[in-house]
C-alpha cells in the first residue's frame, strides 16, 4: 500500500497522520465530479454575465429545473440520453422565455434592480417547481448500462461519476471551441467586448443576448439533469446551490470562462477533501479561501473587473 505523508497540522483536525494515496485519489475524483457540477452551474452564469452584464440570480433555479424535467422525461420515456437532451433544451427555452419577457426590459436599468428582478424570477421558478412537482424530493436511478464502477482505495467510484467528470471537460472544450471559432462565437465575443461597437458592426445584440441566455441556461439544465441520478431534487435546493455558484464567481472573478472552470474544479476538490479529512470545518475552508481572495485580489483570481 502506498502512503503519502501529510504535514502534522491536519492531525489536529483529522487525527490522522497518513492517508493512503488511493483514498486520496478517490476523494480527489469525487472532488472532480462535484467540481464538474459546480462548473455546469457556473459556466452559464459567467456566459450570461459576460455578455449581458446581468448576474442571474435565477440561475440555480434553472439548474434545479433541469433536474425536475429529467425526472419527468426519464420516468415517461425511459431513455436516459433522450431525457438529458430534452431537459437541457426545455430549460434553455424557459430561460429564453424569461429573457424575452422580462430581462430584456431591464438591460439599461440600475444593476441593483437587475439583480432584484432575477431574484424575483428565482422565487417564481422555485415556486412553480413546487406547484408542478410537489414538496417531496424527486430522484432517478442511474441507467442500467451505467451501473457499477471501480474501487479505488476504500471508495467505490461509479462509471456514472467518471462520465460526469469527462463531460465536464468536454463541455469546457466545446464551449471554448464554439466561442472561439464559430461565427456565432465571434458575435458573442464582440458583444462581450463592447456592446456599442458590436452594434456599429451590424451585430444585433438582442439576438446574441437571447442565444447566450439559451446556451447558459441550457447548460445549467444539463447539470441539473445529470445530478438527479446522484442527488434528489427538491424544494430548497436552488436556494442552497446559488450560494455555491456565487462563491465560485467570487473566487474566480466574473467573466472568465476558463477561470470559472478552474475554480469550480478546485472548489470541488478542496471541499471534498475537506469534507473527508476535516468535516467540521469543510465549508469554512471554502469561505476562508473566498475571504482570502477578496483580501488579496478583490476582482477574483481571474477577474476582469
Amino acid at each position, binding site marked *: 500500500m502506498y502512503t503519502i505523508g501529510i504535514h502534522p497540522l491536519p492531525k489536529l483536525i483529522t487525527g490522522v497522520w497518513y492517508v493512503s494515496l488511493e483514498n486520496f485519489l478517490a476523494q480527489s475524483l469525487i472532488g472532480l465530479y462535484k467540481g464538474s457540477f459546480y462548473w455546469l452551474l457556473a459556466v452559464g452564469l459567467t456566459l450570461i454575465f459576460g455578455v449581458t452584464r446581468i448576474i442571474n440570480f435565477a440561475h440555480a433555479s434553472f439548474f434545479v429545473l433541469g433536474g425536475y424535467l429529467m425526472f419527468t422525461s426519464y420516468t415517461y420515456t425511459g431513455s436516459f440520453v433522450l431525457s438529458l437532451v430534452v431537459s437541457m433544451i426545455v430549460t434553455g427555452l424557459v430561460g429564453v422565455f424569461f429573457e424575452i419577457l422580462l430581462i430584456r426590459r431591464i438591460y439599461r436599468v440600475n444593476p441593483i434592480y437587475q439583480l*432584484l428582478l432575477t431574484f424575483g424570477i428565482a422565487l417564481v421558478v422555485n415556486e412553480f417547481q413546487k*406547484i408542478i412537482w410537489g414538496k417531496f424530493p424527486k430522484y432517478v436511478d442511474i441507467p442500467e448500462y451505467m451501473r457499477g464502477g471501480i474501487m479505488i482505495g476504500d471508495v467505490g467510484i461509479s462509471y456514472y461519476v467518471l462520465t460526469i467528470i469527462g463531460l465536464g471537460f468536454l463541455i469546457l472544450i466545446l464551449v471554448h471551441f464554439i466561442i472561439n471559432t464559430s461565427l456565432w462565437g465571434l458575435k458573442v465575443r464582440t458583444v462581450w467586448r463592447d456592446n456599442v461597437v458590436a452594434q456599429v458592426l451590424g451585430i444585433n445584440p438582442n439576438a446574441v443576448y437571447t442565444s447566450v441566455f439559451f446556451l447558459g441556461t441550457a447548460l445549467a439544465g444539463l447539470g441539473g439533469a445529470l445530478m438527479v441520478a446522484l442527488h434528489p431534487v427538491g424544494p430548497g435546493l436552488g*436556494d442552497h446551490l446559488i450560494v455555491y455558484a456565487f462563491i465560485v464567481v467570487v473566487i474566480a472573478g466574473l467573466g472568465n470562462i476558463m477561470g470559472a472552470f478552474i475554480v469550480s474544479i478546485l472548489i470541488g476538490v478542496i471541499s471534498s477533501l475537506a469534507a473527508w479529512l476535516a468535516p467540521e470545518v469543510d465549508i469554512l475552508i471554502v469561505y476562508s479561501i473566498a475571504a482570502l481572495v477578496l483580501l488579496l485580489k478583490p476582482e477574483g483570481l481571474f477577474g476582469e473587473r
Partner: protein
Amino acid sequence: MLLRNVLRDVNVVLIVILAFTLALIPLTGDRFYIYITSLFMVYSLFALSYNLLFGYAGLLSFGHAMFFATGAYVTALFTLKVFRDPLVGLIIGVMSAIPLALIVGFLSLRHTRVYFAILTLAFGMLIYAVLVKWRSVTGGTDGLVGIPKRGVILDISSPQAYYYFILVFFIIAVLSLYIFIKSRWGLMIRALGANEDRLPFTGHSVLTIRLYTFTASGLIAALSGSLYSILMGVVTPDIAYWTFSAEPLVMTLLGGSTYYMGPVLGAFIFITLTTMLARFAEYWLLLLGLAIIAVVVGFRGGVSGVLVLAVERLMRSVEARGVWRSLGLKT
C-alpha cells in the same frame, strides 16, 4: 429650532401615532395579538435597518440576516451561559454587531454594489455554516432554547411586560434612526444613494460612509434579533439562512423604500399576509416573486409610494392645502 422642525415633521407625527396605537394593544388582553404585534415591531426594526442600507445608501444586501442572527444568538448565549438577564443580554447582543459590521464591511464594501450584494450572501451563509457546525456552542440545527425572560435585573415574563420592553426599544430605535437620517451623517448616506460617483469629488470617502452606514444598519438589525430571541425564547440557525435576509428586502420593497416609514408599512403587510391568511401562506413566495418583478418592472415606490401619491393629489386640491397649512405641517 430643530425641535420645531422635528415636531412639524410628518414622519414624527406618524411615529407618535404609531407609538400610541401600539401602547394600547396590551389592553386588549389577547395574548395572540400581543405576541403578533411584538413580532411586528421586531420585523419593522429589521426592515428599517435594511432600508437604511438599501433605500438610503443604495446598497443591496442578501446577508442582512447575519446581524439579526448574531444579535439573537449572542443575546441567547449570554443570558444562558454568562449572566441571566434579558436587558444586559440585549445590550451585549446589540454590541456584537459592531465587530461583525467592521470585519464584514471592510471585506465587502470596497467593491461595486453588485459584487457587494453577492459577497453579503456568501458571508451571511458563512455565519449560517458556523451556527450549524458549532454544535457545542450554538446547538447546531437544534439551536438554543430556554432563553430567559426572568432575569436578575428585569423580569419580563408576562406578556404585558415583554411587550412594553420591546415597545420601548422599538420607539427609541425608530426615533434614533430617524434623527440619524436627518443629521449630517444621514445627509452623507443619502448622498451616497443619490450619486456615489460624485461623492469623492466633494471631499468625502465613499468607503467611510458605507462603513458607518453598514454599522448603524447592523446595530439596529442586531437589536431586532436580540429582541426576537427574548420574545421567542428559542433561536435556530434558519434565521441566518440567506432566504431570511430576503424578508426585510421584501418588506422594504412592498412598503416602499423612498419614505422613512415605508418598511414599517411593509412589515405590517408582510405579517398580516403571512400569519392571518394561512391559505395565502402556501403560495406566498410565488406572489412575492411576482410582486418583486412587478415592483422592478413597473412601480418602484411600493405601497407607501402609492399612498403618498394619493395623499399628494389630495394635498394639491385647494381646500386641502388650507387645512394642512393651518395644522402647521410640512412633509
